[in-house]
């Protein structure tokens, strides 16, 4: 069962290079392929062109912020509108979770990222929203 997670393709939209590196290394342990976008607009374009199983989204970025980017994804007319999106943020404001869920995010992971919590959020989201009606297929 170790093999199938390498089939999971993740796009991480994050402006801070160190943060991108950290998450890339973490997901690398699980064999997850990570594509990176340093800003929201680039991320949206990559979603247009690519094929991802899950999006990790930072909130505070120069240019378009993460919540706006999520709203853009949810506003799509194709199947990609249902892409699982997990917010990864250092924002600890009171309503942050509600704000993210309201914008269409599936879950939220706080920075500094606790690896087990990131994987749990991904596992939960993939089980609930990934794949077809019966969830992700474990190869």
């Amino acid at each position, binding site marked *: 069962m170790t093999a199938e997670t390498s089939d999971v393709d993740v796009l991480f939209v994050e402006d801070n290079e160190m*943060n991108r590196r950290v998450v890339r290394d973490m997901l690398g342990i699980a064999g997850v392929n990570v594509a990176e976008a340093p800003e929201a607009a680039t991320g949206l374009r990559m979603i247009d062109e690519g094929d991802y199983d899950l999006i990790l989204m930072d909130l505070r970025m120069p240019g378009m912020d993460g919540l706006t980017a999520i709203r853009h994804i949810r506003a799509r007319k194709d199947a990609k509108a249902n892409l699982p999106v997990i917010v990864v943020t250092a924002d600890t*404001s*009171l309503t942050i979770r509600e704000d993210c869920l309201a914008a269409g995010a599936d879950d939220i992971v706080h920075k*500094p990222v606790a690896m*087990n919590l990131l994987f749990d959020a991904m596992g939960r989201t993939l*089980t609930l929203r990934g794949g077809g009606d019966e969830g992700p297929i474990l190869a």
Partner: protein
Amino acid sequence: MHLERGLKIAESPEAARERPFLNAVKAELYFSEGMYNASASLLDDVFKGKDFEKTTPSYKYFHELAADVYSKVGRNDVALQHFEAFKRLDDEARELMVNTNSALVAAQFDFANQDLKIARLQADQLKKDAELARSRNRIILIVLGGLALTVGLLGFNFLSLRRSSRQTIKANTQLSQANQALETALKARSEFLATTSHEIRTPLNGILGVTQVLLSDPGLSTEVRDRISLMNGAGETMRAMVNDLLDMAKIESGTLTIEKGETDLSGLLDDALSLWTDKAREKDLDLIIDRSGAPGRILEDGPRLRQIVFNLLSNAIKFTEAGSVRLSVGVETAGIGERLILRVTDTGIGIPSDKLDAIFESFQQVDGGVTRRFEGTGLGLSISRRLAEAMGGTLGVESQIGEGSTFTLILPLVRAGAAAAASAGASGGVFLIIEANPLTQSVLKSVAVPLGLPVETTASPETAAEVLSGGYITVALVDAAALGPDRTARTAAIAGLVAAGARGLAVTWPSPEPEDIEAALAAGAVKVIAKPISAARLTEALLTLLPESA
């Protein structure tokens, strides 16, 4: 000479009233000089027109003189009359004397009372006088004073009303200004804390992220692992401090919110516990969890509950040098509804009885001050108690110096929906996932949620042995790939796990041959689950492994 002048005075008109007495005295003089007729003549004048039976005692002496004078001049009848009058007056005087004596005695006898009566009378009189005066004065006072008072009070009230109104307005203004200033200050502080926290989190993410990634490499040498662990621990402490400070700010500004949601209590406790297993091992402490009485899924603010448990464990491990830290969970039914009882018991240094309250105050350690031996913000217990209260519960402590402390968290318990009923009926076992890949582990955790069992995870069959020895594993799930490269190796590994205590061992097997299934079952596995399989199907397969369903 004196006599002459006295007699002259007696003849004066002013002396008319005293003349009888003066003439009587003159008569006595004449008598003593032998001039009896002259004396008798004067006495005739003194007693002229007097009723001898009604003369006053003052004449007594003159009656006696007259009796002697008149008997000398041969007027015995008149002398007798005077003698009788003298006798009458003498008797009266004697009687009066007796009466006076008894009155004197009586007066003496009653002296004290008289004195008292007099004093009382005087006092009464004084009182009456005073009252009279007072009432007189009072009336005047009432009239005049009342008038003045009315005018004065009106003026005073007016002034004080104006003053108090001014003061009220002033106070209100000051209060609203203070409130505004406070609000601004709180907002500024919140913003400062939020910004600072955000900015600290970014470098922390680097430190913690890289150390976590490094530590996940099983090939690390012990020496390197220890050093990275140290770095990771420092980062975790820093993270906890930032979180504590933010929480305290939220609590103090009243913006802390409790969001109750369906919570996997066992998973939550595992999470909290797993963060301390390394630290406990490092200090050679037994970290024990007793969840035999734990409810399954509950409605609670999971992250907050985890935070409290984390803080209690942190505290217990921090202040315990030898022995154990025990986390136990139970349910108590008392009065209305159920209560979740969560205890963290340590064998640490203990807390003096006079510090039992102080430890829940901010920035307090029992041996606080310059000699703080233990790292941390000193906010953990304070935050935990406030969180417990915000969640409708309590957090208390009992302690014996040198023997240890027990922190007891009591929360109102609400079981969550259908899963709660299912898990409440379950045998209280644990679902063990043996899986190296962290993401697969997480996916399997999610898949296992409908089982309603607490989940434990372990990376490999080798590390599973320790968990299995606990004897509480109901269902274990392992992938064939983790057991070995071929059927023989895998079968041997299954037998090894079963020997280690794995009951209800399910093995996921990619496209298994009938021989594979046969060999696995023969080795002691209870089920072989063919892959690929969807998450939903895997859940169904796992549900058949529960004792009730079997």
